């Protein structure tokens, strides 16, 4: 299970403050703690900022790279900001994210090609958020087809079936799960399946419990990557345990005490 830590995001007040004050230590500390918690990659998102976002992205990427050496997920709705992040990135990168919309794909597929980056692709398009699993699969197929035309290896694709908050769109939690197995059959090698996990519990009272329950369900449905909070110990324990139950890791009594793969 590929874990992308979500915490370096300007939407969090403490991160917004660190960005404003260029507090490199605070960012580096957050990066190290997420890696210690089990992150394989870190998402980098400037959040809403009064400054030039490309500049903030560059600073964040450089600051995080000073502290740790793992792949970074460059997270911005603006292709120019994504490009700035990719240019600053020394190691492997992911782009977070494109959608099935032509305009987005036109902008981001070439960037993924140029930088050898993974590409997270949300299964939404010009028509908006799909309402069921079949509509998600239809958009996923269009994204895969475009990637193949462009020559992007299909295992560089991370298809996201769009997880919506359970308190707002309860029926969609199941539709997203149902879409996952269909994504795997679209191409060879199959694309990765990723979720932005915390969205499922947005605005609810039991966030951690809802997150970790949905994570286990998603893993069973074939999800192999997630953007989540690696500082949530209960969540990370469920992630390990689900991996054991899915025969992805060898069981032993003290498996939670060992470093995850």
């Amino acid at each position, binding site marked *: 299970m590929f874990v992308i830590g979500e915490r370096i995001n300007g939407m969090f007040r403490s991160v917004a403050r660190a960005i404003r004050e260029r507090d490199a230590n605070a960012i580096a500390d957050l990066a190290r703690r997420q890696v210690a918690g089990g992150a394989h990659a870190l998402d980098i998102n400037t959040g809403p900022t009064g400054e030039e976002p490309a500049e903030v992205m560059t600073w964040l990427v450089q600051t995080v790279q000073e502290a740790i050496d793992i792949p970074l997920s460059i997270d911005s709705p603006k292709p120019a900001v994504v490009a700035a992040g990719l240019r600053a990135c020394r190691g492997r990168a992911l782009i977070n994210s494109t959608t099935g919309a032509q305009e987005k794909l036109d902008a981001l597929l070439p960037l993924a090609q140029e930088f050898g980056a993974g590409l997270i692709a949300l299964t939404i398009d010009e028509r908006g958020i799909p309402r069921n699993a079949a509509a998600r699969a239809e958009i996923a197929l269009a994204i895969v087809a475009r990637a193949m035309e462009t020559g992007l290896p299909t295992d560089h694709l991370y298809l996201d079936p769009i997880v919506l908050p359970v308190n707002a769109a309860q029926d969609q939690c199941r539709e997203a799960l149902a879409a996952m197995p269909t994504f795997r059959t679209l191409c060879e090698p199959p694309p990765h399946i990723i979720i932005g996990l915390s969205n499922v519990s947005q605005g609810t009272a039991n966030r951690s419990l809802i997150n970790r329950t949905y994570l286990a369900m998603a893993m069973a449905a074939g999800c192999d990557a997630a953007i989540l909070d690696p500082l949530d110990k209960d969540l990370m324990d469920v992630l390990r345990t689900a991996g054991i139950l899915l025969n992805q*890791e*060898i*069981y*032993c*009594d*003290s*498996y939670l*005490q*060992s*470093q995850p*793969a």
Partner: protein
Amino acid sequence: MRESWPGKIFTVTIGATAAEGGTRARTVTVGGHAALPFLPGDAPSPHRPLVAMEVLDAVPPDWPEHLRGPLADVIGAPAEWARQCVDVYGADLICLRLQSPHPDWQDASPDAAAATVRAVLAAVPAPLIIVGCGHADKDNEVWPRVTEAAKGERCLVGVAVPENYKTLVVACLADGHTILAEAPIDVNIQKQLNILITEMGMPPDRIVLHPGNASLGYGLEYEYSIMERIRLAGLQGDKMLAQPMLAIVADEAWKAKEARLPETAMPVWGAAAHRGPAWEAATAAAFLQSGADIVVLLHPESVAAVKRAIADLTAVPAGT
């Protein structure tokens, strides 16, 4: 087809030269693999498998005569025995089994065991594997004296088992040795033991795995498949199963009736003198295929055969 893996097997060096705080003329290094063994096209292994020869400080009275034969002059003299293994038979390293301290054998003292270790270290330039008698209480008395006698030589010392590992871990940490961790042909227990050992402060690259005891016809396929699972898990990134593996072959191979029965009892099986070595060599050859990094053998004939097999398996094909 070329297969690539996310994980890598730890690299472990046994023995220390003068510059490294020991007295060995040479060291050996195993592991470092990024693929399954001997697959042309996959990542080549940086270190070939090694042949260790077993030296016992006491042999049982019913030891098979065909095993005694070539070793007759050195039985009872471990230092001479070790020298013969290195000088005459070309052993890569020596596996000294300290059997005499066992209460049911000679109940030898820890000091006597330590003296044997010193004598063997002085006799050969090769790195040393040291294995206890298997009696937990006595091993726990012997190990600290033995590791101290070999301080700084970076020996591989064992065997740590789930029921008895703490004293050995402490002794190996104190005197700079690597630990041999044994599980009873059980991948789950092997992983558990490795976690417990590392939790005591032993780095994961100072552990070598001994995944059990079996021989051809007597559980070989179980040990083979467990070794294979361990190696696959290690290559998939499980650091608690990413250690090099060792197989002690001779002990089990010479227990097989095929290795022991005289020709008078079973004429159709052919010459008894060759059956034991063949049983050792065939068992070792299988373990090499499942990922063994060190095979421990007794008979010079099987050593020669296994060394030939390793040379053939690791030879670079013409035209590549």
